[in-house]
């Protein structure tokens, strides 16, 4: 039915194509009230994915009013290929996407040529103010900054740089769109694997020797391989 998830710096709401308008509004309300804490929604921006639904201006107004007045959610963008829906969104000066903009993930080993790789908007950084826990996956079309740790079993995938203001123990993939100039910074770099563009590096096997604490490090591509230097 109605799906809501965290996406970029706000929410992504996926609405079903069927359902009459009042049923749809009821379903939206039900989904938002399902969480225990309605304060959680206040102040969020949202992208609404309408799928194949035809949404006329009045209907769009109703939906937006329910979200804004009822829950403090501000829709700023719409995903739709349907002309009527796009026109209704355009009237309200919302951003319109054909399809959900995602980071295009080339299979490891098949990266587009660096010249053909899309320009990374490094100004479009995602800031995560907490630790990324096991099982969480951060995917962003820009740089990513984590103010916390990246725990084992989690993934951070960014089109740009990755900065971890803590310990990196999960998988980090910078320059995921093919930008080999992207780098990975961490206060403590201990991941099982590092990936930059189509290159990847594996942590060394334990050899029983002690390791002194290394301090902050930066991983970058030098002469076609991933190199790690103090930062």
């Amino acid at each position: 039915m109605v799906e809501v998830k965290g996406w970029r710096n706000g929410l992504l709401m996926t609405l079903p194509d069927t359902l009459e308008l009042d049923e749809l509004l009821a379903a939206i309300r039900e989904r938002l009230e399902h969480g225990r804490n309605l304060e959680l929604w206040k102040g969020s921006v949202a992208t609404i994915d309408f799928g194949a639904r035809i949404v006329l201006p009045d209907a769009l107004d109703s939906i937006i009013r329910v979200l804004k007045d009822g829950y403090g959610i501000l829709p700023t963008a719409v995903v739709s290929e349907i002309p009527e829906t796009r026109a209704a969104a355009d009237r309200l000066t919302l951003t319109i996407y054909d399809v959900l903009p995602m980071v295009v993930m080339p299979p490891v080993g098949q990266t587009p040529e660096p010249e053909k790789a899309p320009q990374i908007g490094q100004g479009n950084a995602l800031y995560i103010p907490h630790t990324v826990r096991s099982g969480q996956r951060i995917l962003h079309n820009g740089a990513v900054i984590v103010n916390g740790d990246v725990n084992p079993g989690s993934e951070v995938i960014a089109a740009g740089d990755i900065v971890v203001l803590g310990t990196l123990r999960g998988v980090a993939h910078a320059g995921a769109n093919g930008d080999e100039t992207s780098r990975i910074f961490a206060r403590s770099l201990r991941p099982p694997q590092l990936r930059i563009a189509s290159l990847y590096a594996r942590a060394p096997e334990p050899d029983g020797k002690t390791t002194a604490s290394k301090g902050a490090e930066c991983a970058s591509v030098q002469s076609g391989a991933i190199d790690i230097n103090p930062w």
Partner: protein
Amino acid sequence: MANARVIVITSGKGGVGKTTTTANIGMALAALDQRVALVDADIGLRNLDLALGLENRIVYDIVDVVEGRAEVRKALIKDKRNQNLAFLPAAQTRDKSAVSPEQMIKVLDDIKNEGYAFILIDCPAGIEQGFKNATAGADEAIVVTNPEMSSVRDADRIIGLLESQDLRGAKLIVNRIRMKMVEQGEMLGVEDVQEILGTGVQLLGVVPDDESIITSTNSGEPACMSDTSRAGQAYRNIARRILGEDVPFMQLAEVKQGGIFAKIKKMFGG
């Protein structure tokens, strides 16, 4: 409706000691004059009845309640040792799909109306339907982990899932620790576990690995009732901390040495 503290005891990983912990904390709280109801949410693989030694007294279970064949009051089994303690068994012949989160919340409300101060929910291993059912009506969470990497990683996942369900402030129990191995750098120490899970997760207790747990599970007599069991002592301390008392941690002699990572060059995780 009467108010009760509803605490889910979870871990992610199986076999780390959730059921043992639930039975022991429940029994210890009851011994401190609290009215406690325990709920076994592991439908299909129930174990809490064995830990309490009450397996022969099961007439109705949680699925009977949810499907209307029995009221909660009839299904709750009073403990044979302490009238303050009661428990609601899981079904063994059904599976996790037999109950929904909404139904779980209704059952918990009915239990609250019976006047219990604490409801402890024994959560099954995993992150699927069983976990969702068990966390549905909970206000607080205790995460149990063993001091080894698989269970810590699973505990981390669980804490992340709890946080996304708005169940914040989870507390941590490190179970089955062997101080000698920690001192020799062969086992993760409590600090190593806290380094990964984050200092925001408050340490509720540290329970030593103890053979008395094996005998207590087989005999159905929770270890917290024994004067000689060190694990039992740890559980009694945990119960007091839950009631707000500031109990110093048992002298398990952890030597501060930066834990395992200073000793072995190791990349872990992934």
